[in-house]
């Protein structure tokens, strides 16, 4: 039992790597562009399906397919931002939600139209990587693929972090996120910085999609679930912080993995519950700060209730 728990913990941490990759893109968009793309998960699936097609239909090596697909998806992100998202953002707070949920529906069903309803996987194309692992003392198995995914996640987050700190584009993106107009006054083309962030976000989603297809199957309708995991990881880790995203991904992965000890369904549920708990905690903290602390706030609320009833009785 203890071994089982240790195994689940380790697997959960590794699974967190996958969530961190898909959440990093979402986090970048939320933090920099202040835009939530509800079709983010569908971008992951599209990336996976494109890679699968390049590999299985055109016969390219997997690595080459990925290297070809990533810039393509990045370009798609750039174009989508330029054509759709920028326009939606000008229309207020509600329009981005309406537009990206419509985009999600269009993408899912178009992918269904093109690729059909079959579940697809890259598992067969990566040979022994799909199932091989290292045996650790205590009967714990480390799957090679999860370890690779986790390492890629750390590299991606670290690379993104370095890119944002050390490169001209990165500084331009951060400056734009912090104060768009002041960034423009420093010569930064803010629209370009936003599009670049969108391109990176979509490419990251697509990369995550590939890993999903390697360790499991994808269908054209797998996207929404991936968006939800990504959003959960972002919220758990704290909005707009990349390091937090990695932690959020790991917390989500571990809670799902521990829940999985009970049953497959409990795995999803525990993840959701951790998210809800974090949300309640965060909103409660804000509420308490706004009301002069928990104690004073609750007393005041109670007094107001009573007061309202009394004044109601007078009328």
């Amino acid at each position, binding site marked *: 039992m203890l071994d089982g728990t240790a195994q689940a913990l380790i697997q959960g941490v590794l699974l967190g790597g996958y969530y961190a990759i898909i959440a990093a893109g979402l986090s970048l968009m939320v933090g920099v562009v202040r835009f939530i793309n509800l079709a983010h998960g569908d971008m992951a699936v599209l990336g996976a399906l494109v890679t699968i097609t390049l590999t299985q239909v055109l016969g390219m090596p997997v690595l080459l397919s990925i290297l070809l697909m990533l810039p393509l998806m990045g370009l798609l992100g750039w174009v989508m931002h330029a054509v759709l998202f920028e326009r939606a953002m000008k229309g207020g707070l509600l329009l981005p939600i309406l537009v990206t949920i419509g985009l999600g529906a269009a993408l899912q069903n178009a992918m269904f139209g093109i690729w059909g309803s079959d579940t697809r996987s890259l598992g067969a194309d990566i040979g022994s990587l799909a199932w091989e692992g290292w045996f650790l003392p205590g009967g714990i198995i480390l799957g090679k693929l999860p370890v690779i995914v986790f390492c890629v996640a750390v590299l991606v987050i670290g690379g993104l972090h370095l890119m944002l700190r050390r490169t*001209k584009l990165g*500084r331009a993106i951060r*400056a734009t996120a*912090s104060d768009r*107009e002041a960034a423009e*006054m*420093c010569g930064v*083309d803010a629209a370009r910085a936003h599009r670049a962030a969108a391109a990176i976000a979509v490419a990251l989603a697509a990369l995550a999609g590939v890993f999903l297809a390697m360790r499991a199957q994808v269908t054209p309708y797998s996207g929404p679930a991936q968006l939800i995991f990504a959003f959960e990881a972002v919220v758990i880790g704290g909005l707009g912080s990349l390091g937090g995203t990695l932690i959020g991904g790991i917390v989500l992965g571990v809670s799902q993995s521990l829940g999985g000890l009970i049953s497959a369904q409990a795995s999803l549920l525990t993840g959701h519950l951790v998210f809800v708990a974090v949300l309640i905690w965060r909103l409660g903290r804000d509420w308490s700060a706004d009301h002069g602390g928990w104690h004073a706030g609750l007393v005041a609320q109670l007094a107001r209730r009573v007061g309202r009833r009394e004044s109601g009785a007078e009328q």
Partner: protein
Amino acid sequence: MTRLSVEGAVCRHGLLTAVRGVSFALEAGEVLCVIGANGAGKTTLMRALAGAHPLAAGRIVLDGEDVTGLGTHARLRRGIAMSPEGRRLFPDMTVRENLMIAAENGRAGDWTLDRVLAAFDQLEPLLDRPAEKLSGGQRQAAAIGRALLANPDVLLLDEVSLGLSPAAVEGVYRALGEIKETRAMTMIVVEQDLTCALNFADRILCVTEGAVALEGRPDDFTRAEISNAYFGIHEKESADA
């Protein structure tokens, strides 16, 4: 040579007309101080020059080229840089990063990091500090330094002395005075501190209710004339008071 000319500039904030037909022209190396009470439209005018606020009418010409339709970053590359109201440093980036952004996205020229640090010596030890940790005077120095690093021909400085201690004001104007001496840069300065404005400017422009109330060299007017134009107080009312 006329460096910058503004012809009949009109700016609106939604329905409010904040700038009503302002015109002026500046020679290369000239220093203009814009004064006026709160809400007179000074900041909007500056933002319009920098491309951060659209013109509803009129045009802005830089070195003979109409730049009215250009966005903020494009104008920076043509040579108009601004230190905006409130300084607007990027708070969670270091001073060095704040300065580098302008250097790497602006134009090449004489103003390098070293020269900025020489002009504002207080910045040197602060380079790796996040901008939000700076004092008011340090912020202003960093903001002006940031604008200088874009190597502009026209430097716009909004609210130079606002919120600064007298010592900090003196420091900033000493540095600006040295830049003015070189006559290499045209400056437009919004200044609430009338004394500073009158001492520093080649010309002053007093804005009231979005329109030009007075324009000329500082010696052209009496202090009372300027003061009244500043508050928009009519002769009659000030006689009452």
